[in-house]
């Protein structure tokens, strides 16, 4: 029972790391970036290539995946995304879906269509008993990394100067600009950071979610569920939504394997009926 709960938490945490970047772009910057999964995939493939071809340690791969994907995000933000900030949402969707298909085809061409596998360092393999509960070490590692990330993100957004600049830029870009905040630089940095997190999530997820060229399409639904259920106006919403979905998914599949795959959709429908603007949305309490 507790093992299932723990597996659910770990799975939810993983979803959160990948989806939080989407929550940032969607919620804070009001940009619908369906290509978010492609950034996660990039992070995964960077890890695979570094580990399998160049023998780089897994722990080193994680920050590299974050940085490289963040740089990639910054580059794309400057060249492509920026032009679409003020475009209607439909244009943004079409653009980013196009980007997804391009990334799928490009990865297929470069790396082939097969499932990519990585070999974790031995200390992350297997499982440990903690208070009589069997927990996978790698899942424990994911949970720990994610917990640190959540706290750090919340602190950055709520306590730092950059956090307040970002919130100001989102609430009213014109006034923020008038106050001397470099709105486009703030957005670029935020976008890059969100992409980097996706890359990190993809790198960490390769072991559990698998990695093949269709990754962005396969998991798009999961990210979108996390963000819609969680609402986009805070960090806590998507975090709790990801946990809820992770636990519901794992527990549903454990207790009702026949309908297990549909449990999360059921949960999503119920949540959206009860709180159509997300768990913690400002308008949600209506």
């Amino acid at each position, binding site marked *: 029972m507790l093992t299932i709960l723990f597996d659910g938490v770990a799975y939810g945490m993983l979803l959160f790391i990948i989806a939080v970047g989407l929550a940032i772009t969607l919620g804070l910057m009001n940009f619908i970036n369906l290509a978010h999964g492609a950034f996660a995939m990039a992070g995964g493939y960077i890890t695979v290539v570094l580990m399998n071809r160049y023998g780089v340690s897994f722990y080193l791969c994680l920050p590299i995946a974050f940085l490289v994907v963040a740089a990639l995000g910054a580059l794309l933000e400057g060249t492509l995304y920026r032009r679409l900030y003020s475009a209607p949402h439909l244009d943004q969707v079409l653009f980013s879906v196009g980007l997804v298909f391009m990334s799928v085809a490009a990865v297929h061409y470069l790396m*082939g*269509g097969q499932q990519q596998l990585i070999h974790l360092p031995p200390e992350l393999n297997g499982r440990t008993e903690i208070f009589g509960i069997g927990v*996978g070490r790698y899942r424990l590692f994911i949970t720990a990394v994610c917990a640190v990330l959540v706290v750090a993100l919340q602190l950055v957004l709520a306590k730092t100067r950059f956090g307040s600049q970002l919130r100001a830029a989102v609430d009213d870009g014109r006034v923020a600009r008038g106050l001397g905040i470099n709105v486009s630089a703030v957005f670029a940095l935020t976008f890059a950071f969100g992409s980097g997190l996706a890359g990190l999530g993809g790198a960490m997820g390769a072991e*559990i979610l698998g990695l093949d060229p*269709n990754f962005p399409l396969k998991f798009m639904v*999961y990210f979108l569920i996390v963000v819609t259920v969680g609402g986009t106006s805070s960090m806590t919403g998507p975090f709790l939504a990801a946990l809820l979905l992770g636990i519901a998914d794992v527990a549903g599949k454990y207790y009702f394997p026949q309908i297990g795959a549909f449990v999360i959709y059921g949960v999503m429908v119920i949540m959206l009926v009860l709180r159509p603007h997300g768990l913690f949305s400002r308008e949600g309490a209506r």
Partner: protein
Amino acid sequence: MITRRSFVAASAGLAMSALAAIPGHAQETVKVGLILPMTGPFASTGRQVEAGVRTYMAMHGDTVAGKKIELVVRDDASTADQTRRIAQELVVNEGVNVLGGFGLTPLALAVAPVINQAKIPAVVMAAATSSITEQSDYYVRSSFTLPQASVPVGTWAAENGLKRVVTLVSDYGPGIDAETWFTKEFTAKGGEIVEAVRVPLQNPDFAPYLQRVRDADPDAIFVFLPSGVGSLFMKQFADRGLAEAGIKLIATGDVTDDDLLNDMGQPALGAITGHHYSAAHDSPENKAYVEAFKSAHNGMRPNFMSVGGYDGMHLIYAALEKTGGDATGEALIEAMKGLSWTSPRGPITIDPQTRDIVQNIYMREVKEADGELYNVEFATYEAVKDPAKAEASGQ
């Protein structure tokens, strides 16, 4: 106004006239149309089958019975309506004499109306659901069927002291085939199925299912999963400590696909699988095949899909030889029935009644040799027919 119906009728008419025109040509080449998923999630199947076919042509030349064999390869991206459209184009525009390939069951089934009308053989080189060959008299299979691989695994399990087994399969045609036939055989021999778990095809995380298996505490778990997903499963199986908990892993060979086996690493060691082909099969035919395949494809290891392509091509060559170069559909399909030869996988026969393949199923264990992982064969079930058809005909 061109309605959909009249369009179909017109194209069908075209197909017929193209067919009628074939004997009139001075036929110097025989065209083989290969339809495979070369892109999309099942691209590795397409890649392996095509490589198998090309290896055959490289080893045996491109002329047989005075005809030159011309290969036309098309990608259907594993979408059934594409497969059908491409098949129609190949028959009508390219005038192919034989179709081949077909990565998945629905893709193979999609061409039934086309081959029925054009009366040309379709060699199923990969798809493995038992019922395919019953849908048209023009299907011939050179791959395998899942019941064929699952039943021997059931026999082996029952004979080797396994009493309580959990089955875990992907929830689609082949998975259900595997589950049904394994269960039938295993319970008939006195085993007990503790639980039958079906996993969605697009399943990211096996944690809950594996925990369920662990809590049921069986002697072994019988698994069928398509090969890419299978490798993820293997890792999580090891990670959850199921092997330490004394649960054996038995499976059809899709899970320990030769193409991916090396990447799976240590967790795969000791897995017991039943299948028709292993790259480690010990025979001169296989040694020559693996060598030719690897040198032509950048060190890639041939898997069970590739051998389906290789033997499918042999089937076409041998049939042409038998007809003395007569490449009309009826002649070819008649010639294919009952052919038997020694393939890299061992002796195989095309059953003249069902046009399905009869072959040995080997029990294998994953072992390390020269720093690489291989499925090492340790027992053989000889000349296994597709059990679904054997049962239907009362054999």
